[in-house]
């Protein structure tokens, strides 16, 4: 009989025997540690967890977690992971990818996965650069960014991953700085719990090729002023003194200060992550000051597997066939005597 109780495991149980080979100081270590902390808290059996990656620095991740895993080919993790999940609905599937892997070469699979809403989790390591190929601009690199393939500055306008994802009907989108492991761990647990495709964008510093690209947002000294950590059902407050907030003025978000011009906490927007209409989520995702982090959107919807399962049940009920022989010998057959 199948053991239905989930063994209580620890961080160490999920560590693989492979030596981790990222550059010293890379945020990827933070993401890995956060994941190893989150996995024992997920109420999922270790053997039912699968990590699928594409190609890039981030995509080495599956080798470092002692679960089932596949290091795929560039850009295709979304499609491989979709196949895994559609083949066995019982698995907890994690896709590990980067800004090059999912927003350039794998852009097509990325948007279609989000559209289909297959119940799995994506962690997008966004470092605004190609690391593994040693420093070319990526689809999230900013205009003017000097890289090995843009020595005079990047001329290609970047994607905002959240904007693209929500445009592709993402039901769950969260963003987090690469230097905040505690919040990240919780987000991984939340993503696992969410039914549907969950996408977490990690603002991940690449110490070698794009060092400091997020410093102005994620540094400890500026974080509270530059980020707004959104929580469902709570007013949109930020700032060192917790006295700044967001209001909607016409079609724009505006920063106000509590206590100035008669503004009180009651005037602020209250975050509704579960709302089906993505309009406000899109505005939050695009906002550059402050940068929205936390769960920006978490709208629960029917998944592709649920639709397929329901359809299979219906078709099976009506079908005359349970064995292929019944099909082969049915209909227009004739006898040669």
């Amino acid at each position, binding site marked *: 009989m199948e*053991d239905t109780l989930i063994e209580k495991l620890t961080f160490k149980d999920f560590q*693989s025997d*492979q030596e981790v080979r990222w550059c010293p100081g890379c945020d990827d270590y933070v993401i890995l540690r956060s994941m190893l902390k989150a996995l024992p808290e997920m109420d999922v*059996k*270790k*053997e*039912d*967890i*699968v*990590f*699928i990656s594409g*190609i890039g620095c981030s995509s080495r991740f*599956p*080798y470092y977690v*002692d*679960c*089932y*895993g*596949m*290091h*795929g*080919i560039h850009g*295709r993790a*979304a*499609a*491989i*992971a*979709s*196949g*895994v*999940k*559609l*083949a*066995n609905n*019982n*698995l907890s599937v994690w896709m590990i990818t980067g800004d090059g892997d999912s927003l350039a070469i794998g852009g*097509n*699979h990325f948007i*279609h996965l989000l559209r289909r809403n297959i119940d799995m989790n994506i962690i997008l390591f966004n470092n605004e650069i190609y690391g593994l190929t040693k420093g070319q601009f990526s689809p999230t690199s900013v205009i003017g960014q000097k890289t090995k393939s843009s020595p005079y500055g990047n001329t290609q306008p970047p994607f905002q991953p959240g904007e693209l994802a929500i445009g592709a009907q993402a039901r769950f989108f969260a963003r987090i700085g690469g230097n905040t492991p505690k919040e990240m761990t919780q987000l991984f647990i939340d993503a696992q719990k969410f039914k549907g495709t969950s996408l977490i964008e990690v603002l991940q510093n690449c110490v070698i090729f794009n060092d400091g690209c997020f410093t102005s947002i994620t540094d400890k000294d500026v974080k509270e002023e530059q980020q707004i950590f959104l929580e469902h059902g709570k007013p949109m407050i930020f700032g060192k003194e917790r006295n700044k907030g967001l209001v909607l003025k016409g079609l724009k978000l505006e920063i106000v200060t509590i206590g100035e011009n008669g503004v009180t906490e009651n005037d602020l927007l209250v975050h509704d992550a579960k709302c089906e209409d993505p309009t406000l989520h899109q505005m939050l995702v695009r906002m550059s000051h402050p940068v929205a982090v936390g769960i920006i959107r978490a709208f629960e919807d029917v998944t592709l597997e649920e639709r*397929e399962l329901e*359809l*299979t049940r219906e*078709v*099976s009920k009506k*079908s005359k*066939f*349970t*064995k*292929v*022989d019944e*099909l*082969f*010998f049915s*209909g*227009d*057959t*004739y*006898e*040669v*005597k």
Partner: protein
Amino acid sequence: MKGLTLDTKSIVRSKNMFALGMVYWMYNRDMNYTLDFFAKKFKYNPEIAESNARVLKAGFYYAETLELIPVAYKVAPSKMPKGTYRILNGNTATAWGFLAAAEKSGLELFLGSYPITPATDILHELVKHKHFGVKAFQAEDEIAGITSAIGAAFAGDLAITTTSGPGLALKSEGINLALMVELPLVIVDVQRGGPSTGLPTKTEQSDLLQALFGRNGESPVIVIAASTPANCFDYAYEAARLAVEFMTPVILLTDGYIANGSEPWKVKSINDMPPIHVKKLDKSRESWHPYDRDIQTLARNWVIPGTKGFEHRIGGLEKDKITGNVSYNPENHEHMTHIRAEKVKGVENFIPELTADYAAEGDLLVVGWGGTFGSLHSAVKQMHNEGFKVGHAHFNYINPMPKNTQEVFSKFKKVLVCEINLGQLSFVLKSKYQGIEFHQYNKIQGLPFSVSDLVNQFKNILNA
């Protein structure tokens, strides 16, 4: 059309039945098959059934009364083994072969596919069969078609992907991933006229070299080809069997001609089909490694996610020969390259030998592969009836080839390789088999061979 309320347009539409009625008279056959067809097809429109039936009969009686056609033929029902038959086209037969393989192996069938002519009908057929547990996934592109199938194979399904020429090109990186992680996967290429978009609705055999060699690195895969509409069933089944038993990608080649062509199929029960041995786990965790191999087949274990205690990682980077961990060791890479090649080569010990029909030795051996079987066989038969010493050898297994190939070839003075391309099998045979006088006959018009052209060619070669 007296008494019918049909408009002129609908009446005129049945005029082709006049010709069919004349053909029925010419061949002296019973019209009931077509009359029953009308009754069934136009069940809800009896007037259309009636108008077609009237025109069919009119054509028959017209030919009979006027005797305009000088010769009437009597074609006796063909001599076929006793049994239950049905008419089947190649694409449906391919789909059914996979259904049979899934049930026989106890695996669930997963198809990842993107619409492309002329392969799409396999997808159309398989999506109907959810009641057999078929998971047919229409992906966003060819690459997602194959890579979703690789994911499904990793998770333990019998995974296939279907495409045609340009789609096979897009799938090449995926084929190599399946080869490297050593997972079972069948890639069906219903060949059409190429290159590029080429002649999408016409037939050709010009993807052979792409199937054999069109990937980066040393990339041996099993390549087999169906040769008639009905045996698409057998070779789809065989492709699935080889993929699962050898844990490797298998390319199944069919073509537009046999995919859309139909013929009587003596219905097979899955009880008639050979067993498919799934590489089950038979070791404890302590003595198990992801790249342990079966001594006979060199296939590695297939351990699927959900199996407690066997968590492991695979991927496209070179693997250590035992642990499956990433390895840049030079000797290991050479060893693994050889192992992957030997595994595919070793399949020759598990496939039937090549046979020569009509003559086991003689002046000319006609060699073909895949969908040209029908025309080549008819042409060689005609030569045989005229007293020529001509044999016909047809390849269904192309990589690896049957072990006795050289031996079969060596019994003939000349070997003529006939293909609907510029000589792709020829190219392979010439590099593999020495001391044989190879000739070529190639036609590349998007059309199958005609028997009379073939017979003329054979005679020219014999006289040369």
